[in-house]
Each structure stands twice: as structure tokens, then as C-alpha cells.
């Protein structure tokens, strides 16, 4: 798994590529933590994401809790199989998905 990150001022774009599973979720979390300082608009682009398991949901939840206080967060280009995971877990109700 590779995590591409683009930061411009208060905008942070995170583009994970491959699978976010129990083995790679740490890299995903770290990419967010290392870059989230001062960010007001956080966007996750899941276009190149194969799938995400619960280990990765932890990172998304932490980011959502942080951004709810200081700005906004959204997830874009969510494939069906990932949307299924969001629906099962109720994450579809707490994330902004476009």
C-alpha cells in the first residue's frame, strides 16, 4: 500500500493506493497524523483504494473526530465494496461521502 499526500495551506488530500488492512493501516494512520496539523479541509480520495478493513476505519474515525472540531472532512470516489463496509458499520452516517 502507498499513501500519496498533497498538502496546500489548510487543505490536505490523502490518496491511498492498494489495500488498507491490518498490516498497512499503521502507514495510513501515520500519513494522516504527520500532515493533519493546521488542516481545515481534509479530503480522502479512494479512487485507487482496493478495499479497507476495520483497522483502517479506526484511522478514518480518529480523523473525523478531529476534523469535526476544527473543519471539515470528506471521502470521494468510494467504490461499491468500500461503501458496503461503510453501510454495515454505520460509517456511512458519520462520514461525508461524495
Amino acid at each position, binding site marked *: 500500500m502507498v499513501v500519496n499526500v498533497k498538502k496546500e495551506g489548510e487543505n490536505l488530500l490523502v490518496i491511498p493506493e492498494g489495500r488498507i*488492512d*491490518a498490516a498497512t493501516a499503521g502507514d495510513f494512520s501515520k500519513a494522516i497524523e504527520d500532515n493533519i496539523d493546521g488542516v481545515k479541509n481534509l479530503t480522502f480520495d479512494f479512487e485507487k483504494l482496493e478495499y479497507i478493513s476495520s483497522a483502517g476505519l479506526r484511522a478514518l474515525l480518529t480523523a473525523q473526530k478531529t476534523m469535526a472540531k476544527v473543519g471539515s472532512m470528506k471521502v470521494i470516489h468510494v467504490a461499491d*465494496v468500500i461503501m458496503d463496509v461503510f453501510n454495515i458499520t454505520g460509517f456511512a452516517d458519520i462520514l461525508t461521502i461524495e
Partner: protein
Amino acid sequence: MVKEITLDATIENIDKVVEFLNAELIRLNCDENVKKKIDIAVDEVFSNIANYAYKPVDGKVTVKFDEKGKDNQVEIIFIDGGKPYNPLEREDPNTNLPVEEREVGGLGIYIVKKSMDQVLYEYKDKKNILTLIKKI
């Protein structure tokens, strides 16, 4: 026909398990989204075993792939000799809480239960045996 792989119960080995199972699923022309659902379920089950079954010592896991002739069903069976633990007895998480009160504990096995057709557990001969059944 049953195929199997036995390896150390460590998080780093998830890739090997997923590759082993994906090769079988691709051979059977499994639908791509069903394959990904199985991969996610496998990640949840295997990481649970790797993180909890034997801690603090190391141990092995055997993963079997059983291709059922009828109904295009496959069975994926995880066998470990760690502490007896039935993940199906875990209470389902509340998926309706507001964001501040959300936690991730318990979501993994819940995803497995919801995305597979059937999940079975038994403890036999000092082994945890968890079986995932899915129509492909």
C-alpha cells in the same frame, strides 16, 4: 478439493494468506467484489488471531480453502491452537451512535458476520476452528 497453508500467526503474513486465497478465487472466476469482501473478512479474522490468539508467545495458523461443488460455495477455515475464543459471541457494536461516541472495537467481526453467508465456530481438540462460507 481442499488446499491449505500453515504459517506464523503474525500480521505481516496477511498478504500471504490473501494471495493464497485470491489465487483460488480467481481460478474459480469469483466475482471481483465478492473476492474483495472475502479478502476483507479474511483480514479481520486473521488479524484477530495474530493479535490475540497466542499473545504473548508465537504460534501457527492453518488456513484451508475448500471448494464446494454445489451452489458455487467456498469455505475458508482458520485453525489455531491459541486461547479458546469464540468471536461470534461478541456483542454487536452499536452502529448508530454519534461520531464522538463511536469506537472501532468489535467492528471487524461484525463486518465478517454481515458480509459472509455463514460463519461457524467450534473448539475441538484444543483448536479454535472458524469457518467462513460464501457463495462466489
